[in-house]
């Protein structure tokens, strides 16, 4: 069961510079566990206390996973996952 994952520039330090990596898992959480086993350090940048970080956006087939159940979002073979850090900030 393979899922293609697009990695943003800032996280490519964990993937040896690779822009896309392959992973497996029937949920996003399982996929992230699988990615962590191959690219140690990645999980911490995506997940905090078991939930996706507020300022990291994850998309499954171009849909924001926040609307698909977050880390419980179901995955199937051939899905595409994209990770993008939020572009955010402000004077506050």
């Amino acid at each position, binding site marked *: 069961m393979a899922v293609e994952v697009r990695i*943003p*520039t*800032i996280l490519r330090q964990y993937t040896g510079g690779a822009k896309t990596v392959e992973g497996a898992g029937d949920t996003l959480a399982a996929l992230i566990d699988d990615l962590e086993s191959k690219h140690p350090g990645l999980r911490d940048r995506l997940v905090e206390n078991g939930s996706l970080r507020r*300022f990291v*956006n994850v*998309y499954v087939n*171009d849909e*924001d996973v*926040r609307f698909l159940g977050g880390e419980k979002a179901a995955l199937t073979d051939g899905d595409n996952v*994209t990770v*993008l*850090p*939020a*572009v*955010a*900030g*402000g*004077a*506050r």
Partner: protein
Amino acid sequence: MLSIRRDIVDAIVAHARKDHPDEACGVVAGPVGSDRPERFVPMLNAARSPTFYEFDSMDLLRLYREMDDNDEEPVVIYHSHTATEAYPSRTDVSLANEPGAHYVLVSTRDDDTQDFRSFRIVDGEVTEEEVQVIDGE
């Protein structure tokens, strides 16, 4: 140093003035590795706030897909501060995730003084840089 065309500087400032008192935000994309900000892309501030900005998540995905297809990267990421100086806040620094980008800040605190500054934000460290405005074209 950031080298940027005057018409793009003017477009960023105009966007910041238009959205005042909310913060305005956007990017200027350019060819990968060129360090040339060429394509002005104003973004919607999904937070619609005077003290916070965030690109809408679907807009963000479309923007990065588009840049990918065009072999572009975000050379400049800009936003405005509407009541404070054009200097990265603690929030700006902790959320800066493009170490290769020039972070441009514009302050719209004063109506007639233009405060347009550029910074590198890498691993939580802020370095101000010179802005060279290019005339013509």
